[in-house]
């Protein structure tokens, strides 16, 4: 695996609580991504980053925020979790360019009760 670590790997929390997921890379890649995976939807992009403090929205960004203060860390925050945000979240990294494949972490399974 590319050097990508997601934490926590599993989390159960209650509606309305804040949640932060962390993605840490050791590959020094410029681009980092957060996806959610849901049955019947494949992977959908939430937010991505193209450098330190440079982030942008993806397809399903409502209810999520991100921060990247260091090259190696990309944080995904759910300010007030809702049951619709129950999902498996994946972080990915890549080099610059459309031809660069993305490399994925092992995911975080988040359940919101």
């Amino acid at each position: 695996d590319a050097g990508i670590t997601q934490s926590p790997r599993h989390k159960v929390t209650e509606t309305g609580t804040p949640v932060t997921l962390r993605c840490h890379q050791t590959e020094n890649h410029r681009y980092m991504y957060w996806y959610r995976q849901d049955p019947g939807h494949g992977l959908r992009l939430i937010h991505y980053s193209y450098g330190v403090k440079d982030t942008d929205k993806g397809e399903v960004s409502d209810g999520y925020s991100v921060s990247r203060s260091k090259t190696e860390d990309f944080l995904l925050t759910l300010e007030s979790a809702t049951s619709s945000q129950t999902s498996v979240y994946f972080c990915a990294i890549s080099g610059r360019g459309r031809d660069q494949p993305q490399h994925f972490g092992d995911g975080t399974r988040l359940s919101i009760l």
Partner: protein
Amino acid sequence: AQSVTQLDSQVPVFEEAPVELRCNYSSSVSVYLFWYVQYPNQGLQLLLKYLSGSTLVKGINGFEAEFNKSQTSFHLRKPSVHISDTAEYFCAVSDSATDKLIFGTGTRLQVFP
């Protein structure tokens, strides 16, 4: 925006039989295509990619895919599957407008003994 269609949500097959997983994408001037595999409780791993050149692309684990521009397809094939190939397979296209990966909804390959 580009899109990817994986028509088969599940493909059951017996061990040592050939398999084809279908992927169609919306047309574009230039297209970069990827196949990823996801084993249970893991992230996605790159199987193969098409960037340019030969339309037949070989990947890991004996998989190959053929790029067909006229039919806008990028089907994945393996001449003889193993039990260990049981996994979910995702086709993805790099969107020429946004540089982002667009994923299909996935095909679950189930190999039976």
